[in-house]
């Protein structure tokens, strides 16, 4: 059905509010005209198709956000609506000037409250508005900064009021989020609506990003061309972790957590593989109170002990400075006109919502008398959950609120309830009006601020909702500023910035990242080997016609025991009869548990989960192709988990799909990550894990001598689980023999799946690690790996195969051989961790109080 203006009207008009696109007379406002006709040409179907492209692109790129305590889980897909928010450049300029003024004022207020506090002394701002705000950190008083502006990054939530002007709704100063999402929104809409970008003069965002980079570079305590800039994130569970990782990879900054950093000698250092590397600038996404557990919240694990003192000495710049949360303060709103006059002798350019601070008697009385018509907020809690909408409250709730206001009046501000404008939103069947809030961004540049020509526009989750927040789930829009002149040729926004990350090299790799890569390698290896092994066992179960027949039962028994040994899911099939009877009575149930029970350490489900965790923790390194494959691995796995009664064939099918995807994933890892970015660590983890599991597998199937035909078949299974059966047949063209199987799987230095090959490679890889280079002697972990490699090279297979007939079927020498190898590799793993990943050292408070600041 073609989209005509009639269908727009039909579904569109509901309220008398200001609408961004339509005039009250149903005319289309000028900035929207070009967009409207283009959309008309697309038709409903065309629009929906583009929306699907958009969803797909975001999904492919792994754009997500997290919602705390959300049953739908982490990493929810980002929801971008096809219809952008459009502003004419002329109006945007007015907004930009207003934002520049407001940022300038807030910067002056921030400097004043942490400095001489003239505003309080001169009676411009009541002291309770500052001292009574939990974001006012007395520890930060009197600090001098390296940057001219104290407020380096500022964000404002802006909405259009009924008078048609753009109003400031909220100030964001602590660690404003959204810039990364705004970038991704633009990148996506350029890809999905290329013809509109060619026809309409949409202001590009790229300059603004350059400026952000400049801001951080120039914030360095000592002028440097290439200062060490890090993004401090609370970790992968934070709601905007995607953005932290995104900005880090866009600009080539290191993404670090508190544990990656340490304070020594009055400077801030990043723990890297090589050792400590000085940090110049921190773009901070950890909240104020959590950044230093020495001086601020004692219970915080997210920050760096002693950071504040490094800032105080001007040896590092933290952007925005610790303590800036006090500017997220609706208590300041009523005093902003006086502040503007005090500092700049100006009127405020942007309108604010009428607000009454209850710390003043007259204002408080007004608020108490008019509570049902007002919106009440605490001066220091501006998140949606702490806002009271008088009109929706019962009499009892209003009474309670009155009590709270009377008890601590200075904490509360009441605001007029505003009907903000609506903007068109595509909803699948048409276009409907939704309330929107735009987040605009400002960054300090010289003595003024630069405003992003765009921003992040958030849309209410449904037509009737007035509260807008991503934390509650909601849609977003790209924000287009239309230039007056002709369309200028603007380069498409590049996804990745060209900063030379290679120059910094492996030595500077944060040790937490290195550890995550190492574990990613280990878990990928473990997942693959476990999946292959289980698949081999399931296949045998599927083809054995009669499990009670002697040969079959001996074989299967040996295989089942080896499953427990390879996965380490003891007791399982191993141990005394009383323990294992249950498993042997129903081997399928036990195997299903080894496959699917993720609460069981060693199970495939558990390993996949660990693999997922290590993947998320370093997602800034992965490419979008890898993200796609990773998602499909998860999809396969979730499909299996949803199946309550899988048959053996279902298991085999799942494992087949899993294995193919894992191999694709491993191939992508090798081609997408550079060695200097830490690929080496991934390889070390992978080779180490595969070596260890090869040893366990061979030990489990080879050390006990079996009857001839049983042994023959077990050898065949071993080869099959190692994906080496064809190679064996090709190389030896013979009956399967123990000696030759050992040659192929253990001793052949040319064959990439053999233990000798893997250990040799491991030996070469670890010698490239920073500490290996420094000494003439081999470093601890090198010794262990080299020794393991030598033992394999020097082994005499006939000796290993020897058996003492009287002592039973165990090949003692072989067992000892595998035991030693296994020990050596475990020691290597421990030494590697101790040398390179030792950042998790326990820290604790001398005195142990726990209380909120």
């Amino acid at each position, binding site marked *: 059905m073609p989209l005509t203006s009639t269908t727009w009207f039909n579904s569109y008009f509901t309220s008398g509010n200001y609408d961004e696109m339509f005039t009250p007379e149903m005319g289309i406002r000028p900035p929207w005209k070009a967009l409207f006709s283009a959309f008309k040409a697309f038709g409903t179907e065309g629009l929906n198709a583009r929306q699907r492209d958009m969803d797909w692109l975001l999904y492919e790129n792994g754009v997500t956000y997290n919602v705390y305590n959300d049953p739908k889980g982490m990493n929810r897909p980002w929801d971008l609506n096809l219809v952008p928010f459009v502003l004419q450049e002329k109006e945007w300029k007015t907004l930009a000037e207003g934002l520049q003024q407001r940022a300038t004022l807030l910067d002056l207020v921030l400097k004043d409250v942490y400095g001489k506090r003239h505003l*309080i*002394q001169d009676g411009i701002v009541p*002291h309770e508005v500052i001292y009574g705000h939990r974001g006012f950190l007395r520890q930060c008083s009197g600090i001098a900064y390296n940057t001219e502006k104290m407020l380096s990054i500022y964000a404002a939530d802006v909405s259009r009021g009924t008078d048609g002007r753009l109003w400031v709704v909220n100030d964001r100063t602590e660690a404003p989020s959204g810039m990364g999402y705004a970038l991704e929104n633009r990148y996506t809409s350029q890809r999905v609506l290329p013809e509109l970008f060619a026809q309409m003069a949409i202001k590009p965002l790229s300059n603004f990003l350059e400026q952000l980079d400049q801001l951080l570079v120039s914030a360095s305590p000592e002028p440097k061309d290439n200062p060490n800039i890090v993004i401090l994130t609370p970790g992968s569970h934070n709601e905007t972790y995607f953005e932290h990782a995104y900005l880090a990879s866009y600009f080539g900054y290191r993404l670090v957590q508190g544990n990656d950093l340490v304070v020594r000698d009055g400077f801030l250092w990043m723990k890297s593989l090589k050792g400590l590397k000085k940090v110049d600038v921190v773009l901070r996404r950890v909240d104020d109170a959590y950044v230093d*557990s*020495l001086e601020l919240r*004692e219970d915080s694990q997210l920050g760096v*002990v002693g950071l504040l003192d490094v800032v*105080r000495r001007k040896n590092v710049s933290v952007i925005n400075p610790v303590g800036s949360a006090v500017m997220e303060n609706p208590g300041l709103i009523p005093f902003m006109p006086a502040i503007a006059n005090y500092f700049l002798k100006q009127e405020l350019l942007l309108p604010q919502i009428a607000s009454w601070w209850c710390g003043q008697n007259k204002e408080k009385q007004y608020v108490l008398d008019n509570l049902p018509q007002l919106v009440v907020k605490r001066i220091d809690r501006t998140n949606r959950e702490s806002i009271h909408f008088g009109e929706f409250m019962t009499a009892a709730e209003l009474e309670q609120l009155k009590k709270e206001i009377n008890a601590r009046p200075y904490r509360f501000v009441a605001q007029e309830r505003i009907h903000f404008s609506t903007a068109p939103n595509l909803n699948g069947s048409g276009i409907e009006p939704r309330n929107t809030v735009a987040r605009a961004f400002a960054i300090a540049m010289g003595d003024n601020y630069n405003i992003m020509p765009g921003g992040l526009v958030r849309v209410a989750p449904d037509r009737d909702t007035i509260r807008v927040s991503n934390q509650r789930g909601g849609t977003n829009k790209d924000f287009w500023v239309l230039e007056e002149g002709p369309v200028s040729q603007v380069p498409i926004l590049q996804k990745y910035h060209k900063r030379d990350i290679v120059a910094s090299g492996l030595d500077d790799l944060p040790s937490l990242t290195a550890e995550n890569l190492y574990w990613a390698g280990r878990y990928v290896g473990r997942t693959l080997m476990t999946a292959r092994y289980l698949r081999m066992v399931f296949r045998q179960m599927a083809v054995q016609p009669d499990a009670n027949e002697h040969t079959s039962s001996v074989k299967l028994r040996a295989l089942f025991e080896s499953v427990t040994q390879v996965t380490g899911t003891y007791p399982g099939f191993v141990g005394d009869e009383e323990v294992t009877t249950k498993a042997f009575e129903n081997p399928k149930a036990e195997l299903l548990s080894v496959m699917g029970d993720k609460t069981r350490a060693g199970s495939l489900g558990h390993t996949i989960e660990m693999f997922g965790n290590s993947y998320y923790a370093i997602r800034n390194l992965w490419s979008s192709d890898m993200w796609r494959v990773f998602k499909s691995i998860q999809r396969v796995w979730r499909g299996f988990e949803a199946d309550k009664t899988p048959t053996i064939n279902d298991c085999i099918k799942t494992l087949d799909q899993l294995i193919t995807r894992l191999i694709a994933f491993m191939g992508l890892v090798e081609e997408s990550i550079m060695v200097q970015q830490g690929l080496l660590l991934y390889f070390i983890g992978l080779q180490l894990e595969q070596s260890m599991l090869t040893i366990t597998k061979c030990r489990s199937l080879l050390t006990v001598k079996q009857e001839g035909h049983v042994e023959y078949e077990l050898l065949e299974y071993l080869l099959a689980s190692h994906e080496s059966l064809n190679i064996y047949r090709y190389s030896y063209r013979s009956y399967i023999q123990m000696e030759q199987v050992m040659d192929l799987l253990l001793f052949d230095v040319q064959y990439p799946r053999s233990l000798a090959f893997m250990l040799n490679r491991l030996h070469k890889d670890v010698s490239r690690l920073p500490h290996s280079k420094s000494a003439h002697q081999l470093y601890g972990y090198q010794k262990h790996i080299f020794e393991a490699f030598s033992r394999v090279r020097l082994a005499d297979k006939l000796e290993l195969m020897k058996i003492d007939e009287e002592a039973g079927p165990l090949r003692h020498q072989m067992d000892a051989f595998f035991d030693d190898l296994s020990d050596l590799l475990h020691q290597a793993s421990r030494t590697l961790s101790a040398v390179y990943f030792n950042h998790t050292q326990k820290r604790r408070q*001398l005195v142990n109080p726990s209380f909120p600041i």
Partner: protein
Amino acid sequence: MIFNLTHSTEYTYSAQVSHGHNIGILRPRVAQGQELLDFEVQILPEPSEQSERIDFFGNHITRFSLQTPHKILKVVTKSRIKRNFGAFHQAYQTDACQKVTLSVALQSLQRLDPDILEARQYLLESIFIRRANEEIRQYAATSFHPERSIFDATYELMQRIYTDFDFVPGFTTISTPLVEVMEHRKGVCQDFAQIAIACIRAVGLPARYVSGYIETLPPEGQEKLVGADASHAWFSLFIPDFGWVDFDPTNNQLPIDQHIVVGWGRDYYDVPPLKGVVYGSGNSKLKVAVDITREE
């Protein structure tokens, strides 16, 4: 009167500590009737770096970092202090101190002159002293009336806390909520000071927390024991147009010269003697000794 004061804090760890960062308010500040003649701090092991600064409330903060592995941390401060509080104490007898009623004080607190503004921050809630509950309000209301002198009312409040509360070391820790102290009527000096502050703030007056030392005198005829003196805490009431007046509810007295001030803040949180974060596993044992001698 001149005092020589030694304050030693010793942490013994069960396992080696590789490094640590510490801050503490150790250097006594200059205060009404108090001068600091000499001060030194000795830290073992030798800190890799050490600095001093003045905090928001005007206290001296000592900060140091340890980078040598150690099992014992010992911090010893030696101060030489001149106390001459007598003259100010005399002024308590004046009308300016004695005759300010609650209603007059509340009126004066509306003004914006610097002293009043400075004092008003001690009216607000603080980290350890949240808004008083009904029980604390009732307790305060017994002593404070609009037309009664706030000096008299506070004096009575001090006496009542002294009588009603038992001094029981170990019953509370620094993070025991005030309501619990109020309910059980047990605690130590910082609890009593904080209860008093909560009461005074509940009636709308500024009160601050004072941390310091107290010289203990041996019973008649006995030798004074080394280390018998102690860290101590009390509170201070702001009387508009007069100043800050100290009260010690633990000893039921108005401090004169035996109370040596180290620092003050809104509550204990603002003036911890020594705190820190250490890297290492295991537990720690704390030993504190304070010794005050008079210079002849």
